[in-house]
């Protein structure tokens, strides 16, 4: 991957430690770096599996995600996504993949999970500004800490428990419209909605 060697010198300092470790795995098959990633992200992914109802397959999911991280690390480009974002998308896809495989054992999967849900950096030709992406992750972390709990609760259920907005409404016993407006308020602060208006 030649692109990895063309780092803009100024942005180099902004690479977060996890992205540096992931890059070491990708470039040098560095097992020490891989172990550090496992210690940091393994417990997060195990929680993710348990939160979304895959408790009996939680360890299996963690293993699949880490095998996938190892195999795909050669494709990782820190300018396309921070390591945590890249690893989240791998965890998401492995979860979808496992559920698909459990659901239909014999039917051939014409469209693979990664045809539908892309990992950042795959099949992407357009140049990206790393600064924008790294800022966006930092901004999200900051903005999240200022959101009211009722908004973060809804977002957590969508991302961690993989519940649709309708399911969240049913569970919290509030109207669907309320769930949607909480998400909109949150996404507004996270500047995702703002981007809508520029369309």
């Amino acid at each position, binding site marked *: 991957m030649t692109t990895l060697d063309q780092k803009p010198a100024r942005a180099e300092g902004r690479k977060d430690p996890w992205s540096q470790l992931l890059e070491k795995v990708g470039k040098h098959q560095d097992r020490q770096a891989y172990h550090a990633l*496992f210690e940091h992200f393994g417990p997060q992914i195990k929680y993710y599996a348990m939160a979304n109802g895959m408790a009996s397959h939680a360890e299996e999911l963690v293993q699949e995600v880490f095998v996938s991280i190892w195999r795909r690390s050669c494709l990782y480009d820190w300018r396309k996504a921070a390591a*945590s*974002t890249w*690893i989240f998308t791998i965890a998401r896809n492995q979860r979808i993949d496992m559920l698909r495989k459990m659901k239909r054992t014999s039917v051939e999967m014409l469209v693979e999970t990664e045809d539908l849900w892309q990992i950042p950096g795959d099949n992407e030709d357009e140049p990206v500004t790393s600064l924008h992406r790294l800022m966006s992750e930092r901004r999200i972390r900051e903005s999240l800490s200022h959101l009211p709990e009722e908004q973060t609760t809804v977002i957590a259920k969508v991302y961690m428990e993989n519940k649709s907005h309708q399911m969240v409404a049913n569970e919290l016993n509030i109207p669907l419209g309320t769930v*949607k407006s909480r998400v909109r308020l949150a996404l507004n602060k996270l500047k995702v909605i703002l981007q809508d208006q520029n369309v």
Partner: protein
Amino acid sequence: MTQHHPDSLTLMEYSAGNLTEPHALCIRLHLDQCPHCCSRVDTLDSLGAVMMEQQPKVDVSESMFDRILSRIDSFDDNDRELVIRNSVRPSPLHKLLGDDLNSLPWKRQLGDVSVLDISERFPGQQEQVVLQKLAAGGKAPVHTHRGEETTIVLQGAFADQKGVFNQWDFVVLNEQDEHKPVAVGCEDCITLSVLSAPVRLTGTFTRLLNPFIR
């Protein structure tokens, strides 16, 4: 450049991995042609990562790491090449439907409308997945929608009272939307629709015409 985009809530459900395969396909096809929405999904993927980081952690054992190490020992340079090769993926549309949408086994419905139900290509999914073709310059009958219909334009363009929908534009219609689409431009307009429930016709003579009618 596409003009009609998925809303942020739908993109969030996509980023979280909560959409069904047919719905995810509609989003994917749009993203492939819309850098603007790609950038929104990047932000939402980062939101997912930050959410995951802020949840409780569950201990993982060192023995699990040993099992992972024994699995990765089996991968060599060949696997690396395979991974790199597979990272450049053909469009899912091509995988599903081949490279010529016009020559699919279309079923002529009435007048200008042809359809092709491809639901069976998504085994285990509840929704109906339908391709619709409106002949160039043709009109579809007036109809409303029961439940929700998610549509992406694959070829050509259509217009209704809400505007013109070009290739890769994304639109969601529901009970409130009565419309009478017309194919504009010199090409047949082909759309992919995911229907959560059948469509109801409001005109009198159009019982035959479905997915508009099912």
